C-alpha cells in the first residue's frame, strides 16, 4: 500500500521566501525587455520600469558592440557600486564599462564570422528532414563536423572567446557565481556533469564527447554572456565553458577553469 512519506522539514518558509525574493531580482532583464517590446503587458507595470528599460537599452547597445557610440554614452557606474536593490542587469551583468563592452564586441565579431562560415557549410549539405531518424541526425552531424573542422583547420583557443573578451567573461561569471545564488548555480551546473571531465581533453574543433552529458547552463549565466543564435550554445564540461556548435556537435572554442572551485 502506498502512503505518502512524511519528512521533517529542513527549510523554513521564511528562508524560502528570502531566496525567492533574491531570485526575483534576477528577473528584471527579460521582463523589462518584454515590457518594452510587447503590448500585452499591463501598462501600469511599465510605470516603475521606465528607468530600468532605459538602462537596459543602453547596456544592450554597449554589449552588442555598437562601438561607434560607446564614447557618446555616459560611463555607467561599476557593478560593485550598484545598490543591492538595482535590477539584475545592473547588479549582476553590468552595465558594462565601455572597455568591457568593447572587449565583448571583439567576440561578437568572431561569432559573426563563425556563423557566416557555418551557414555556407550548412548550405553545402543535404537538408536534414524535419522527421529524421537518429542515424540521419548523426550522419548529418558528422558531415557537418568534418566540414567545419576542415574549414577551421588552423583554429585555436581564443579565436572566438578572444583574449580581450576572456577576462571580461571570467569576471562577469565570477560575479554571478559569487552572488547570493552562486552555490546553487554551481550545483546546477555540476548536476549531471560529475562524471565529466577533468580527464576529457578539450580541443577546438574537437567533437563534443559522446559520453559526456550536456550540462545545465543556468539562465543567470546565459543572461550574462553575449547572446548566441540557436545554432550555438554555451555548455559546461567540468569547470570549463565551451561554445558548442549544435549542428556539428563540435567545440568551437572554450575557456578552462571558469567555474570557481
Amino acid at each position, binding site marked *: *500500500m*502506498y*502512503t*505518502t*512519506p*512524511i*519528512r521533517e*522539514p*529542513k*527549510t*523554513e*518558509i521564511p528562508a*524560502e521566501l528570502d*531566496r*525567492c525574493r533574491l*531570485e*526575483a531580482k*534576477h*528577473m528584471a532583464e*527579460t*521582463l523589462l*525587455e*518584454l515590457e518594452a*517590446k*510587447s503590448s*500585452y*503587458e*499591463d501598462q501600469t507595470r511599465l510605470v516603475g520600469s521606465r528607468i530600468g528599460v532605459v538602462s537596459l537599452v543602453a547596456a544592450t547597445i554597449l554589449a552588442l558592440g555598437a562601438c561607434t557610440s560607446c564614447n557618446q554614452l555616459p560611463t555607467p557606474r561599476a557593478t560593485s557600486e550598484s545598490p543591492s536593490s538595482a535590477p539584475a542587469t545592473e547588479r549582476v551583468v553590468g552595465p558594462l564599462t565601455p572597455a568591457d563592452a568593447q572587449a565583448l564586441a571583439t567576440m561578437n565579431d568572431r561569432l559573426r564570422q563563425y556563423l557566416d562560415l557555418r551557414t555556407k557549410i550548412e548550405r553545402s549539405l543535404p537538408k*536534414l*528532414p*524535419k*522527421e*529524421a*531518424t*537518429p*542515424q*540521419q*541526425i*548523426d550522419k548529418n*552531424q558528422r558531415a557537418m563536423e568534418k566540414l567545419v573542422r576542415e574549414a577551421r583547420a588552423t583554429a585555436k583557443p581564443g579565436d572566438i572567446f578572444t583574449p580581450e573578451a576572456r577576462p571580461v567573461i571570467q569576471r562577469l561569471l565570477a560575479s554571478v557565481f559569487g552572488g547570493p545564488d552562486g552555490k546553487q548555480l554551481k*550545483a*546546477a551546473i555540476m*548536476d*549531471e556533469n560529475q562524471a565529466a571531465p577533468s580527464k576529457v581533453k578539450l580541443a577546438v574543433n574537437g567533437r563534443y564527447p*559522446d*559520453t*559526456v*552529458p*550536456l*550540462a*545545465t*547552463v543556468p*539562465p543567470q549565466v*546565459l543572461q550574462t554572456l553575449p547572446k548566441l543564435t*540557436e545554432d550555438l*550554445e554555451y555548455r559546461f564540461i567540468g569547470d570549463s565553458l565551451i561554445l558548442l556548435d*549544435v*549542428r556539428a*556537435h563540435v567545440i568551437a572554442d572554450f575557456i578552462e577553469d571558469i567555474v570557481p572551485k
Partner: protein
Amino acid sequence: MRIRQWSSVALVLLLIWAGAAGVHAIQSPAESPVALPNKDGSFKFSVLGDFGVGDQKQFQLADQMATLHGRFKYDLVVTVGDNILGSERPQDFQKKFEIPYKPLLDAGVKFYASLGNHDSREQRFYKLFNMEGKLYYSFSPKAKIRFFAFDSTYPEPEQIRWLEKELAASNDDWKIVFFHQPLYSSGRTHGSDLQLREVLEPLFLKHNVSVVLSGHDHVYERVKPQKGIAYFVVGSGGRLRVGNIDRKSGLTAKGFDTDQAFMAAEISGDQMYFNAISRLGQTVDSGVLTRRKITP
C-alpha cells in the same frame, strides 16, 4: 485450509470491486481515488519527464505505461524534457527511448516532446518526438484542446512573443502548456523558476491556460492551483531524486518522491481527470480539475 479458501474468495471479491471502480491501481487507504472515467470519445494522454536514462527503472515505468495503455487507450504522451539523458548517439535513442516505449510506439501512441536543459537541440528533428524541426510548437490533437510546447531553457523574447500569439489565437477550451523548467516546484534541487514565472504566468492567466506541465525536478508533484491554473511537475520518469520534495514549500497539493512515476489524464468536457502512477503500478495521486473559463 478453510482460512485459505476464505482468503482467496476475499481477494477475488476485492479485485472485482477494484476493477469495477474504474481504471486505477492501489491507492493510499487514507484517500478515495478518483478513477479515470475511461469514457468513449474523451481525450486521453500521458505525461512523462526526465526519463531517458536507459536503466531498469525506466523500463519498469515504461512497462506500467504500456500496461495502462492496455486498458486506457491514451492517444499520446507529452514529454516535459530531458528526453535523452547523457550521450545521444543513435544507439542511445534506441536504448533510452525506442526500446523501452516500443509497445506504446507499436500501438500507435505518439510522443510530443519538449526539450530539457540536458537535451541536444538536434532532438527537434527526431521524427518520433514529433517536433518537426521546431524548438517550440503547438498542436491540437482533438477539437477544443490545444497543447503548446515551449523551450524553457532558452526563453528568448521571440519565443515568448510566439507563445503569446499562439495562445491569443487559440479559441480552444483547453490550453495546456508543457515545458521543462517548472514555474512552481517544491523540488529542493531546482525549485520554482521565478524568472520564467514572471514572464509566462501573466500570459497563462490572460489567455486562459488551464494546465501547465513541467519536469526538471526529478519528482512528481501536483502543485496547489496557482491563480486558478493547475501545475504539475512530472520529472519522475527516470533518474529519481528520493526525498527531494520540500514539504514546507507550501506549494504541494500532492507529492511523490520515493519512486518513478508518470501521469495519465483524460479530458471529458470541462473536466480533466488525472492519475499519477508509480513504477510499481500504484496510483500515487489522482483527482479531477475543471478548466478555466475567463470572460473577456
